[in-house]
């Protein structure tokens, strides 16, 4: 089993899909000559040429719109945002054109497009460059939202995203591009809507995804294990569609749920999970669902305040103690 970085896994997915389907092309800022702001598209220009690896001006709304138009007429664009923060400039294109075209054209135009790039906070990038926007995009019917937490999932899910006939929002993490993991040999894809049990446990369910899963939830689960608390840790992998049954099944087993996410609390993805759980497995809950989110403020630039604002191992352990009624 080869071990690759998350960056390399994404690169392989795009490279393989470009070989498999000549309609696939990559467009975005610095994806070609600079080999990508985070080097995900390293070498692709050389291999596939400037018709399929396309550099753009700093004009997100424009190149997102070009991608949507290309998709409507039969191509399969991958639109890279240098970060998802900049997608807000293209918000109207993604939300009003990509997400709604199939419905508003009476089924005549589907939009097979992937918007991808890193999301969430890194180190001291301050408020406008540190946002976890998954709940925002998951809000809109017509968009699928994918958030891998490891190289294997990243490759399998990106290939599925590229083959999907409708728009997919694919959110990575710049903090994770260098993180390595094993991936299967050869061709594989991972379906949307199928979550992953990162580790099995019996005392409490933690649902988390992407960076905070690996950097916060896993570490909290390790510490809790030392304390005799067994965590059932679930990575839904795709925010929309969500693998509800996997979460319900776990809550039926543990009777308690903590959701760890990087976004803000109000109308966050965790709020939706909490609702679905209380609606569908109400009788299995022994404690109110707890959420660990970013604090409800624009993320501060100052490092100490940034750390204090983001989800942490300590916050997760506190939440777990709460749902377990531990002192």
């Amino acid at each position, binding site marked *: 089993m080869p071990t690759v970085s998350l960056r390399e896994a994404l690169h392989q997915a795009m490279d393989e899909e470009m070989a498999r389907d000549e309609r696939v092309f990559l467009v975005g800022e610095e994806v070609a000559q600079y080999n990508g702001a985070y080097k995900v598209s390293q070498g692709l220009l050389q291999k596939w040429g400037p018709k399929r690896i396309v550099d753009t001006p700093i004009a997100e709304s424009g190149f997102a719109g070009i991608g949507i138009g290309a998709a409507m007429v039969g191509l399969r664009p991958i639109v890279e945002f240098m970060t998802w923060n900049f997608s807000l400039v293209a918000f109207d294109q993604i939300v009003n054109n990509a997400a709604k075209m199939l419905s508003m054209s009476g089924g005549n135009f589907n939009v097979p497009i992937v918007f991808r790039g890193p999301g969430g906070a890194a180190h001291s990038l301050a408020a406008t460059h540190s946002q976890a926007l998954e709940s925002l995009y998951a809000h809109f019917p017509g968009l699928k939202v994918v958030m891998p937490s490891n190289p294997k999932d990243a490759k399998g899910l990106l290939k599925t995203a590229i083959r999907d006939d409708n728009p997919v929002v694919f959110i990575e993490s710049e903090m994770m591009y260098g993180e390595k993991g094993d991936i299967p040999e050869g061709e594989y894809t991972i379906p949307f809507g199928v979550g992953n049990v990162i580790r099995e446990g019996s005392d409490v369910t933690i649902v988390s995804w992407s960076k905070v899963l690996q950097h916060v939830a896993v570490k909290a689960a390790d510490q809790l294990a030392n304390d005799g608390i067994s965590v059932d840790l679930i990575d839904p992998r795709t925010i929309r569609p969500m693998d509800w049954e996997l979460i319900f099944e776990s809550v039926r087993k543990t009777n308690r749920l903590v959701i760890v996410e990087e976004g803000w609390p109000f109308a966050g993805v965790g709020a939706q999970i909490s609702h679905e759980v209380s609606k569908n497995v109400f*009788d299995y*809950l*022994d404690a109110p669902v707890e959420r660990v989110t970013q604090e409800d403020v624009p993320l501060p630039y100052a490092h100490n305040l940034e750390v204090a604002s983001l989800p942490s191992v300590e916050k997760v352990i506190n939440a777990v103690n709460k749902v377990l*009624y531990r002192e």
Partner: protein
Amino acid sequence: MATKVAMPKLSDTMTEGVILKWRYKEGDKVKQGETLVEIESDKADMELEAFDSGILRKIFVAEGGKAAIGAPIAIIAEANEDITALLKDTPPTPPVKAQAAEPQRPVVTTPPPSPANTAAASTTQRTDGRIKASPLARKLATENRIELRSVSGSGPQGRVIKRDIEAALGGKRSPLPQSYAPVTPGTAQDVELSPIRKTIAKRMTESKQTAPHFYVTVEIDMEPAMAFREQLNKIYESKISFTDILVKACATTLMSHPHVNATYLGDKMRQYGYAHVAVAVALDDGLVTPVLRNCEQKGIARINQELRDLVERARNRKLKPDEYSGATFTISNLGMFGVDEFLAIINPPEGAILAVGSIEEKPVVKAGQITIGHTMRVTLSADHRIIDGAVAARFLQDLKTHLENPVSLVSIS
């Protein structure tokens, strides 16, 4: 007037009792009729009411301590009454000191919180009359027929949560029974027997030494009973168990076998014109045999209902003495553990006990053909002083006929 409170005799076989919990402390006002203290007898945990109103002036036996029947355990008197005389003629040292007793009691499970206790503890949190409980706790309470109001909530604002229901169930759902304190590997440890354990030891030894046991086993085709049970549960939307059907079948059979439904009394035997059937229920540190009275008159649905209630209260140690005594016959079922057959010891003063194994799927011969069938083996242990081999065999023959033709258990008159 100052009165001594003595350790009461709570069962026929009780010789001493353990103080589980004083509901009041010295100096508290107590009222006649209110529960004063919880006592563990050899059979169950029981509440002792105060016979007089007054001030609880003196507690002789602390929680965890033991006292023989009739020994003083407390004094209730007026606030300024002189109780020196009463104190004087009471042994200065209590029968058993709490400090000594406490570490010796690892096998005694904590009693579940009782209703009166809870009310006092949680009225402050329930001023609006609502009971706060997690959804899971509500579901578990319904499933186990526990009154939420009777459970003390340990969550925030007195919320009743899963662990409270489990405590009320006597910890039977907890993965590790608290009664089995692990023994450090490589060492040995003396654990004092609980009152219930002592009673079992005494009575079983007595039974095996005085009643000459013999054993007769029969295999029963259970497919008719399985179909019967399925039909009953479908029609009545009930959860009739095989034990319920077995109780009814034994009762019906016993009524035509007075030699088996009997007690040896030296120069005579007492034959019963009723079937009071006891069912053995395992507890963490022993077993109890709640009794279903007059099963010959009761239908299977009623037996089901009463047995459920008795078993639940047996597990919570809430049986009253007349609910675990007076049986004429006992059924002990280890089928749920995958046991195919075993030999039980007669529960005196009864004349016989039925040991029930599991229903097994296995090849059987029917009409000259080998087919897959479901059979169950039952073994009757009989007291040879009053029951002979052929009598026991005929009893089992009839029992087999009833279970293989379960419609005979339904009253049509």
